[in-house]
């Protein structure tokens, strides 16, 4: 078996569940290299509910739910009463003061934050984001604390926006034990003044994507702050669309990297538009339109709250809660199957953001997940337009803050 060529070794290792794959990476150097080239897969995702203080719910098949500590019950409950997820990246979660791997049920505490304005739990001045690349060798993670409140004096002085430099705190698991203050220098031209930004620079939920060593932070005017962690540079990328009332914007990661999505009602019909970010032309960032589709057919097929689903995915697996037999299945869910749904003539009365919620993208395939009528979750393949029912997720998600 020692002589097994790489492609056959990949065939073997690709059949292992994550914990065994992790052990295999340590067997020898070549195995590690082969394991790193395996396509990553999505077995489940977290969803934060509006109720109960942003409680995290884990949505997956029962076999995954049993394997992964999606309930986060291994996190010390005294200290973190109801763990909420601040950010996520490639399977790791950022909790207040902790980085957690639910698949291995391991926690790593973060050192105390140096700036006394920002406690570990209350994120008033900054938002923290996790940057973890399991493909990097050796893998390590960084936590970036991005301040989002501009100092008043900057705004009053009419300083240009984006600022010439931007200061953030970064913790790196490789460098060890403390936060480091780092200054990121602007690339590209200014396109306004800070005073003009103030109204939009609010404290709502922000989302970020980490892709190939770069952190992309979604800002409130839908622009994206692109922070390159390796060379301490940053730039602002304008939004592909104007900010409008009633439009829900989302930044996420999928097959080609960074995706921007808009969900809104267009003359009573739900529309979904998706762009991905392309940096093909020598460092210049462009949004390329990927999809512009109507979600009406999906909405019409799942018009009511449901307590039953043809899909096997469940929320918050409990050892005693599963009363039907389920198969021990370690292969990846087949996201490619499904059917193409067709619109009927009657308009379904829907409310985007309530009856129809965009949960997020599949991180490695061009597939979107939607929740319908507060219950059914479907996957929507952006290339084949196949729709597939996954299961029931009877929680009200925080909009545009789902975790994959």
């Amino acid at each position, binding site marked *: 078996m020692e002589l097994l060529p790489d492609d056959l070794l990949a065939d073997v290792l690709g059949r292992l569940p994550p914990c065994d794959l992790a052990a295999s990476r*340590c067997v020898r150097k070549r195995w590690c290299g082969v394991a790193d080239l395996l396509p990553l897969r999505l077995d489940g995702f977290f969803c934060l509910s509006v109720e109960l203080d942003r409680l995290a719910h884990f949505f997956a098949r029962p076999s995954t739910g049993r394997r992964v500590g999606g309930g986060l019950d291994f996190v010390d409950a005294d200290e973190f009463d109801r763990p909420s997820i601040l950010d996520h990246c490639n399977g790791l979660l950022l909790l207040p003061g902790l980085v957690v*791997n639910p698949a291995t049920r391991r926690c790593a505490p973060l050192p105390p934050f140096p700036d006394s304005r920002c406690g570990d739990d209350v994120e008033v001045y900054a938002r923290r984001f996790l940057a973890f690349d399991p493909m990097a060798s050796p893998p390590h993670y960084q936590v970036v604390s991005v301040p989002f409140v501009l100092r008043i004096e900057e705004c009053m002085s009419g300083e240009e926006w984006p600022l010439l430099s931007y200061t953030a705190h970064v913790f790196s698991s490789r460098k060890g034990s403390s936060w480091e203050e780092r200054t990121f220098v602007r690339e590209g031209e200014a396109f306004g003044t800070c005073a003009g930004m103030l109204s939009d620079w609010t404290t709502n939920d922000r989302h970020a994507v980490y892709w190939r060593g770069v952190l992309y932070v979604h800002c409130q005017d839908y622009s994206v702050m692109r922070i390159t962690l390796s060379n301490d540079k940053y730039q602002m990328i304008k939004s592909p669309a104007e900010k409008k009332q009633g439009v829900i914007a989302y930044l996420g990661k999928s097959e080609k990297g960074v995706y921007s999505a808009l969900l809104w009602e267009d003359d009573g019909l739900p529309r979904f538009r998706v762009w991905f970010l392309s940096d093909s032309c020598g460092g210049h960032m462009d949004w390329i339109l990927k999809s512009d589709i109507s979600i009406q057919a999906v909405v019409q097929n799942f018009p009511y709250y449901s307590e039953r689903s043809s899909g096997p995915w469940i929320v918050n697996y409990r050892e005693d809660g599963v009363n039907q037999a389920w198969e021990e299945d370690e292969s990846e869910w087949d996201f490619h199957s499904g059917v193409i749904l067709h619109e009927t003539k009657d308009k379904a009365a829907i409310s985007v953001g309530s009856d129809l919620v965009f949960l997020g993208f599949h991180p490695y395939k061009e597939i979107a997940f939607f929740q319908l009528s507060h219950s059914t979750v479907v996957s929507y393949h952006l290339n084949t337009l196949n729709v597939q029912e996954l299961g029931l997720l009877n929680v009200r998600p925080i909009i545009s803050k789902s975790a994959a």
Partner: protein
Amino acid sequence: MAAPESGDGNNGAARMVTLISSDNTRFEVEAAAASLSQTLQLTILDGGGGGGDGIPLPNVDSATLSKVLEYCIKHAPAAANGGAPNATAVDRAELERFDNEFVNIDQSVLYSLIMAAHNLEIEGLQSLVAKKVADMIKGKSPMEIRRTLGFPDPTPEEQAEMNAHMLEYGWAYE
């Protein structure tokens, strides 16, 4: 003129082909069984392997080839049904039982089998062996995996590397 629809067995008898292993042993099998190999299928469709010709397989020895053919003969009827959507539960259970038993063999044979399956492009057989090897790895520590697969004990450098690996990000991967 187009070829007759069922190229093999025009007179009721199944068409046979001859395969020649690296150590010059000749195996005569039904074309349908040998056609489980994508590589052989092309040759057979072109009319090769019949009569006294035989198809030489310089990468597969006779012990391995006989094992490969055992698999192919067993799976040929199901494969002919296009993955056997009509197969009865009994048939499927029987194939599964056969498969389980089939890979219950020495590691060196498993290795030869997966290499042959790969060379001959027999998808089902390659999956079967890969799954078996994966099952052998499951639930074991890196050291146990090495022992199970008969790797030599790690050199001091390798050991140091493994330790460093576990230390550095074992917490995320354990």
